[in-house]
């Protein structure tokens, strides 16, 4: 039964975060594209993370808060702050990317492989 732990909170928190994104798109100018949504979420997640407001969301929602792109922003900010504590000022430059390296590398690798393997269907 262990695998089903935290499912409901993840579903609820993740759903609510996505609804915020939907409202951003529907209630703002039509030129607010998916790219703008993603940039807003990653930046927003980083700022909330820095203020210490995103961590509780992760504790409550688990994947519900880490899977949305705001979770990626949170990891970037957390990584930078943790590295500053360990290594001083240089950590501000290295920490964010180091903490999210797996995600970035996976995105590049899988993105490239899929682009090579498939053709657009239209």
């Amino acid at each position, binding site marked *: 039964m262990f695998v089903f732990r935290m499912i409901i909170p993840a579903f609820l928190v993740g759903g609510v975060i996505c609804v915020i994104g939907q409202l951003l*798109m529907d209630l703002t*100018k*039509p*030129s607010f*594209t*998916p790219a703008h949504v993603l940039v807003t979420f990653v930046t927003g997640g980083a700022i909330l993370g820095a203020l210490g407001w995103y961590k509780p969301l992760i504790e409550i929602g688990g994947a519900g808060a880490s899977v949305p792109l705001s979770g990626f922003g949170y990891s970037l900010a957390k990584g930078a702050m943790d590295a500053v504590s360990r290594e001083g000022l240089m950590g501000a430059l290295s920490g964010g990317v180091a903490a999210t390296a797996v995600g970035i590398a996976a995105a590049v690798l899988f993105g490239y492989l899929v682009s090579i393997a498939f053709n*657009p*269907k*239209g």
Partner: protein
Amino acid sequence: MDLKRVGNQTVVFSSPPVILASYSVVGPMEGRGPLGKTFDKVWQDNINGEKSWELAESKLLQEAMQGAVEQAGIPLSQVDYMLAGDLLNQIISSNFAARKLALPFIGLYGACSTMALGMAVGSMLIDGGFASHVLVGVSSHHDSAERQYRLPTEQGGQRSLSAQWTVTGAGSVLLGQSGTGPRITAATLGRVLDYGETDVGNMGAAMAPAVADTLLNHFQDLQRQPEDYSLIASGDLGMVGADLTREVMLRSGMSLGSEYTDCGLMIYDKSQDVHAGASGCGCSAVVFAGDIMQRLTAGSLKRVLLVGSGALHSPTSSLQGESVPGIGHAVVIEG
């Protein structure tokens, strides 16, 4: 020589050019729509074995133009000019089709109004005595247009409810100095109007004022009323643009009755989930070359006013926040 120009913007042809033949080629989705049976050729898929969507679009145009010439039964060598246009950068579909046909070529850009523009200019060439046969054709392709103007086709996201669906298709007409067929009797070339619409998901609203302006001038120049036509068809205003055109015309003192419709509302049915209707150069071209030409020939339509509607923006101008200028070109076709 007498001036053939009447009023502000209209020309009346002294020996009206004849539409000797018309031909339309469309993609599978258009083939499944309500006008499916009126098209000359329906592709089984939207790429038809070509290497890219852009080449597929060029192939559509080439097939439509060759089809019109074959149907007229004259050799290609007797065509004096080829007039063509499309939506892609530097009208590349037309240029590539022209490379295959190897005729004296005039490339046109009027965005989605290009079919009407081409018919008007072609008629001027013939009535002016510069040509005996002019081949006019335009194309658009949903996938090549989407990726140039909007987002990649595989990107997940919602299209707005006012968005229209670019037609995959090409239409062509062969105009001649003499012969049998419907005749192009007059044309009103439009001026560019911009009422400040910036939403590229609402092209109908951007083009409606220009179409209304052309209609207004057309009726004044020729001293006619909308009732003098059995059909007034705008090119691709879609649901929102067609409603706006009616309303703007009404406020300007002219009411459009049941003779008015929009080609963009004819191609797809409700179940095809295209939101506000069809758009693209191919939209008015395939509706005219198919359905309207057939009804003109059969005699169920006497006098038709086709008003091509074009949105004269580019992806760059939209990203820079510029509003979308619109244009409307009208041609009168009598059966």
